[in-house]
């Protein structure tokens, strides 16, 4: 199984086609605007990003894709008008499969304890720190147990001591799942704590903006 993407043009930069195998960690280093553009292409109907399985290709943005590929977006981990609990369970609630909802609901207290947010689960998300966005995305990934995780600058805008906690939780999860990781980062010094088998750097005119 592998996560693939076509060669694509993001603003003024050409990104070559590539893939991540399960268990592999690759990094694309580019300014944040390009990262968002890459993520938009992922959900676009042009199917520039897809999951190649033994049976069939699953296009990016589809329900099947999001069941196996978890995204951890920078400062975009929560919907403000939902509670933190609803945010973590959102994809399960949306899919509406009772058995899955039950499984996720039963597992949630353990996940919340591990993330140290058990007492905050029923608070409305509202405006939260980058750390909380990251934790909610991490909680979602812990419940979803995906084959691949796409991470966008997860550690940026976190305080150093929180970066340490997050890094440790994230690395534990990746090890535990054996998931493939595609890390979109603005800097090679992102401090993700992961060993990348490939790191491609792209610079564009937008970088200085």
């Amino acid at each position, binding site marked *: 199984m592998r996560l693939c993407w076509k060669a694509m043009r993001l603003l003024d930069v050409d990104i070559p086609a590539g893939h991540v195998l399960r268990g592999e960690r690759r990094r694309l280093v580019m300014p944040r605007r390009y990262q968002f553009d890459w993520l938009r292409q992922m959900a676009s109907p042009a199917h520039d990003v897809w999951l190649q399985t033994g049976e069939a290709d699953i296009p990016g943005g589809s329900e099947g*894709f999001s069941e196996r590929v978890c995204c951890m*977006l920078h400062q975009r981990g929560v*919907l403000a008008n939902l509670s933190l609990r609803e945010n973590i369970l959102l994809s399960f609630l949306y899919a509406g499969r009772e058995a899955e909802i039950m499984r996720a609901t039963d597992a949630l207290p353990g996940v919340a304890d591990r993330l140290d947010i058990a007492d905050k689960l029923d608070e409305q998300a509202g405006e939260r720190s980058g750390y909380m966005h990251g934790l909610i995305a991490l909680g979602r990934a812990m419940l979803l147990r995906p084959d691949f995780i796409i991470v966008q600058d997860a550690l940026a805008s976190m305080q150093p001591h929180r970066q340490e906690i997050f890094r440790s939780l994230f690395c534990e999860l990746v090890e535990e799942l054996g998931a493939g990781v595609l890390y979109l980062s603005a800097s090679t010094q992102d401090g993700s704590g992961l060993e990348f088998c490939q790191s491609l750097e792209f610079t564009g005119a937008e970088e200085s903006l």
Partner: protein
Amino acid sequence: MHVLIRQVYFTGVQSLPWVMTMIVLAGATAVYSVVPFSRQINDPSLIGTLVNALLIQEMAPLIIGVFLLARSGVAVVTEIGHMHVRGEDMLLQSLGISTVEYLFLPRFLAFGLCGLILTMLFAGASVWLGGLMLAWTHEMNFAQFLLEVRRGASLDGMLLLTAKGLVYPLLSCAMLLFQGARAGNNPNQIPVCTTRGVLWGLMLMVLVDAGIALFRSLM
């Protein structure tokens, strides 16, 4: 479904105290304008005709449409606008959740459903309350008033009320959602889009109302 229920609660149930207040005021205004006028010209049959034409077919759908636009419409545009600014649409897409299905459809359906129910409630309750007020102030017998209103009613009129009660909120909601989605990632655009959404929603309703009136006069 959960989002739809939440929207129906916000748009419909929480609106009820305001709608009840408007029912009392509009019912009183209408009957106390119509009944003395029909007495002046000695034609009680006008009561039914005017109450049906003005209060039920014109005022009810327009007042409910404007009310939904002012109360829930502003909330819809700002909420959708803020979601875009915060990039929550991107989060939804990354979770494989359709923004149309999750954000737009529940609000659209809630507007249509609540608009229709509130319009019917407004039309029915304002006639009843107006009649009760007339009876209480000894202007007219309650049963006689209802009989006159019943005489003035027609199947066409009821169908028109239903159509307006459904179409006006749907049209305004479509405009509000469109404007909310136009906020992009610029928070300064949210108030601009809200104003534009409310004004265009209002214009759409009035234009369609004028169009319907023109079409009926030509038929």
